[in-house]
């Protein structure tokens, strides 16, 4: 499986964010997107996720399932956690498992991995910021999708949580997955660096 971007350009609100961006990642590889604030790291992730339309160029995933789009084979972990405070932790997770589609695994197991199994019956409103992030991470584990798009994934996680997540990313890569992560800090796994925004 190979993710590649050719001459990708992004325009937002009439402003050119970046242009002529080339990148490539194969199965088992991680791409760390770095750059100053406002350089378009999040925009690049949203372009790959299909949530923005590139102004120029193209992004493709070769060797995936032919009838699925790039977005349908990706997990997006953004700044906003897509959790409903009124629903319980397991209701939140089960909804995304049922709704998003893909190869499933046991949600209880994913909750145990992110150390939220004790809270599965509690409303998500009672979770702290770090716990909400852990719950979002559990979504990536409950549904198998080859491409992970992570926007500052370790935000709000404590050191134990960061260590846990580094392990999970390693597992994902070793199973042949791909990771594109926008980050300010070292990811903690071997990753190629993709610099955006400082060329011009």
């Amino acid at each position, binding site marked *: 499986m190979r993710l590649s971007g050719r001459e990708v350009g992004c325009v*937002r609100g009439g402003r050119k964010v970046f242009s002529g961006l080339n990148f490539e990642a194969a199965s088992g590889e991680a791409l760390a997107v770095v750059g100053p604030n406002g350089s378009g790291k999040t925009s690049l992730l*949203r372009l790959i*996720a*299909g*949530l*923005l339309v590139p102004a120029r160029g193209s992004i493709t995933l070769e060797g995936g399932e032919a009838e*699925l789009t790039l*977005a*349908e084979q*990706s997990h*997006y972990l*953004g*700044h*906003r*956690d*897509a*959790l*409903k405070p*009124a*629903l319980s932790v397991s*209701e939140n997770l*089960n*909804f*995304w498992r*049922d*709704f*998003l*589609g*893909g190869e499933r695994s046991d949600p209880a197991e994913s909750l145990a991995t992110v150390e939220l199994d004790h809270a599965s019956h509690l409303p998500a409103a009672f979770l702290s910021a770090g716990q909400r992030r852990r719950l979002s991470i559990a979504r990536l584990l409950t549904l198998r999708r080859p491409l992970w798009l992570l926007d500052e994934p370790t935000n709000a996680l404590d050191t134990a949580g960061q260590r846990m997540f580094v392990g999970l990313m390693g597992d994902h890569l070793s199973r042949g997955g791909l990771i594109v992560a926008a980050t300010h800090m070292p990811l903690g796994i071997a990753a190629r660096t993709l610099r955006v925004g400082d060329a011009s």
Partner: protein
Amino acid sequence: MTALLALIRRDIRIALRVGGGALIGVLFFLTVVVLMPFAMGPDLALLARLGPAILWLGALLASLLTLDRLFTADHDDGALDLITMSRTPLELSCAAKALAHWLAAGLPLVIATPILGLLLNLDAGATAAVALTLLAGTPALTFTGMIGAALAVTLHRGGLLLAVLVLPLSIPVLIFGVAASEAAIAGPSSFGAPFSILCALSLFGLVVGPLAAAASLRQGLD
């Protein structure tokens, strides 16, 4: 199908748990109807004659009021991004959300109609006629309203803008809804013709609403 059922179940659950979201619509409906006699006077004959119109206006405003939240909550917490990325077509997801919204907010209005009919001195037959037309017509209100809700989300404005966008679109529903109820109560024109058109409007909305809403959500992604 599991995906759509999961979405419907989730939305209904949230509507029932969060601050009685659905019930506030009914309360608003009740309040609007109770206000009418204060403006028009407590003449029961007059109220009975205007009853269907009052109930339809109240239901229209109440369903508009609750529509505001159809997409905003999912947009604000990022769930809309994931819904867009899912393997379920966005059009179907929109239709499922609208259906869930109707079940949680539209159907209670229909169920509340008999009590309000009592306040407006409508007899049992008239109340049943209005409830039936609301049952057939409120889906059209929800489905056309969702277009406005989708536009309002992408423009980052809700509330009054939504009302201004949606109210003109709902005029046909109002016309045939009231016409069908009055035909059933007073005659002599037939009930069937306007009622069929009302059903047709709902079916038309079921097709056009999700398509337009999905298109405007896609356009407005950022």
